[in-house]
Structure formats: C-alpha cells, structure tokens
C-alpha cells in the first residue's frame, strides 16, 4: 500500500496537519496513487479523526521511540523543516517534501531547506502552497543525499583533546 508519512518532530504544526488532511490535499495524494497517510503530530492540538479523509486510509500518533519504521515504510515523506526529521528521511533514501513553518519567530529552518533544495535533495513549500505542490511536483528530479561524515569530527576532536 503506497504510503505517505508526515512528521512534525517535537513541534506543534497544526497548520500542516490541517492542510494535509483537507479534502483537496487528500484528493491530490489519491490522484498520485497514495492510499495510506500516517501522521506524526507531535505536540499539536489538532488531532484529525480517523474517518475525516474518506479518500485515504488515515493513521495518527503523537510520538514513538523511533519513527525509523514509519520512514522505511513510506513512499513519500512530508516533514517540517527540522534538521533531524529532514536528515532522517534523506538518510533513509526517501523522496522528501519539506513544509516550512513561516510562522516561526526566527525562520532559520528555511536556510537548510533552501540549500538542500538548491542541491536537489528535497522539494519544499509552505502550507499555503502544499496542495498545489502535491499536484504538480516531480519527484524524479531529486538527487541522492550523502550523510555527513561524523568520523571526521571525531578524529579532529581526538587529536585536539589528546585522546589516544
């Protein structure tokens, strides 16, 4: 069953959850062949009813110890712009659509989403353009992402601190 996984990390992002479960968005997902929508809603106050989207099978949860399994099962990941969620999705090799929360006080998250978008690793949009993006996006333009080299950091630190 082709699945879309939506994740907001530890934030609350009611606008994203509200938009993705609107009948227009659900219709757009259905038209692309997605049949199942899994929502990780974090601290959000808006909790969609399981039967609120007749077009698509809906599952909702707040938090899990690990969302790795949900990422693995997904054919498309829609995420807030948090680094952890973005990098987890890219690390799992999933097509990623980032929805930027333009209501945040200091919208630095845009920088990373834009840079990774410039490097063709993800698509990005805001809540107001989400439905349109779901209709028109082309996932075949995305390039695979190479994870960061933590070992280089560890080696540097070992040397600097004199660790044997």
């Amino acid at each position, binding site marked *: 069953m082709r699945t879309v996984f939506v994740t907001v990390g*530890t934030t609350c992002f009611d606008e994203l959850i509200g938009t993705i479960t609107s009948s227009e968005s659900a219709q757009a997902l259905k038209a692309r062949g997605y049949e199942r929508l899994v929502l990780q809603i974090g601290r959000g106050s808006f909790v969609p009813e399981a039967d609120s989207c007749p077009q698509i099978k809906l599952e909702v949860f707040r938090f899990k110890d690990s969302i790795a399994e949900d990422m693995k099962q997904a054919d498309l990941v829609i995420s807030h712009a*948090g680094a*952890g969620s*973005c990098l987890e999705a890219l690390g799992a090799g999933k097509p990623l659509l980032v929805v930027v929360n333009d209501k*945040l006080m200091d919208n*630095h*998250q845009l*920088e990373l989403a834009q840079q990774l978008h410039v490097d063709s690793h993800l698509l990005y949009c805001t809540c107001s353009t989400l439905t349109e993006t779901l209709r028109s996006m082309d996932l075949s333009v995305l390039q695979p992402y190479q994870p960061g080299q933590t070992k280089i950091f*560890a080696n540097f630190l070992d040397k600097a601190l*004199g660790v044997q």
Partner: protein
Amino acid sequence: MEVLCGLTLSVLFTILFLIIRLYITVKNGPKHQPGTTGSVSVLVVAGSGGHTSEILRLMESLSAAYTPRHYVIADTDRMSEEKICTFERSRQHSNSEPQFTICQIPRSREVHQSWSSSVISTVNALRYSLPLVFRLRPDMVLCNGPGTCVPLCAAGLLLGILGMKKVLIVYVESICRVQTLSLTGKILYPVSDYFFVQWSSLRDKYPKSIFLGRIV
C-alpha cells in the same frame, strides 16, 4: 563618599579581573588536552527535537574514551529522553554499567517565546545550570544550538574563571545554519574553544570557526 569610591573601585577591579581571567581561560583552551589522562567526561546539551538527533549522531562517532556522558535535556522533552536511552542502550556492552546520566533543566526558550521573556527564563535556567555543572565538573561541554547551551556554557566558563576546572566548550553549529549563525552560536562564538560550522559560507564569515564539511 570615600567608602562609595572604594566600593566602586573594588567592583571595577573585580570585573576587570574576571574579564582578564575569562580571556586567559578562553585563550588557553586549545592547549588543554584532557584526553591525555585517559577519559574525557562530557556534558552533552541535547536540547530538543532536531538538536537531539544531530548531537546523538556526533556522540555515535566518539570513542569510549568519552566517558562518562551526562546528557542535559529540557524538562518538557520526553522524546529526547527516549532517543538518548535508545542510543545509549545500543552502544552499551552486555556486562558493563551504563556510563551515562540524564539531567533535566527548565527550557531557556520555547520556540514561540518572545525575546524579553526569553531573557527571564534563561536567568531562571542559570539557577539550575550552575549547581549542575559545578557538581559534574565535565572536561568538555558539547552543544549544538538550543538555548539551554548558554547558561550551561556560562557555568562551565565560570569554573575556568575561578580556576577550579578548565571546561572545554565544543560548539557544533546546527546543519540548519547555512548563511547565519543561530543566536546561541553568536553568543558562544567568542568563548568556544572549538567552534564548528557545516557550510563554507559560515566559515567565510567567521574566521575562528572550524569547517570540516557536513559532519552530521
């Protein structure tokens, strides 16, 4: 009047002394190599959400020499606690004692909080940070940007200023930051011993920073 003058002078001298001590503490950072004694105790500021994931990726790369590990999380953050426990369980050897602790302090700043009330809650967080850092006396503080870093690093600096213990401040700017440093980064840039950035555009703006490419 004379008493007042004397008082003002002594306050000024104390401040000057502390500034000089701060300068010396920061300047001598790179010469300090706690690793030569065998193990490096680390205070890891996990913060919340994406910050936690990033810092755990860094922790994953560090050898067993970085022991014990004390994680500090915001007291409203259950998800980080679970992530840390999962991570630590995965690297624990079957027979050994767990080499980590988790400490909770109040959040410095929620995402939607205004600047003025941020200041108040940061001062509040300092009340918790000072006793914590003075008790643990870590060799280094590893942090990557949540507001909680600032009071914890300040407490670490104070240990150095008072000559009690040199606490290395290792700051890794979040991969989120491509063009500008975070507020925390801007505050900690002058006092960090090792300040890492992950995009070349930041290295160009901040010459003291260390750029090794993307490291998380």
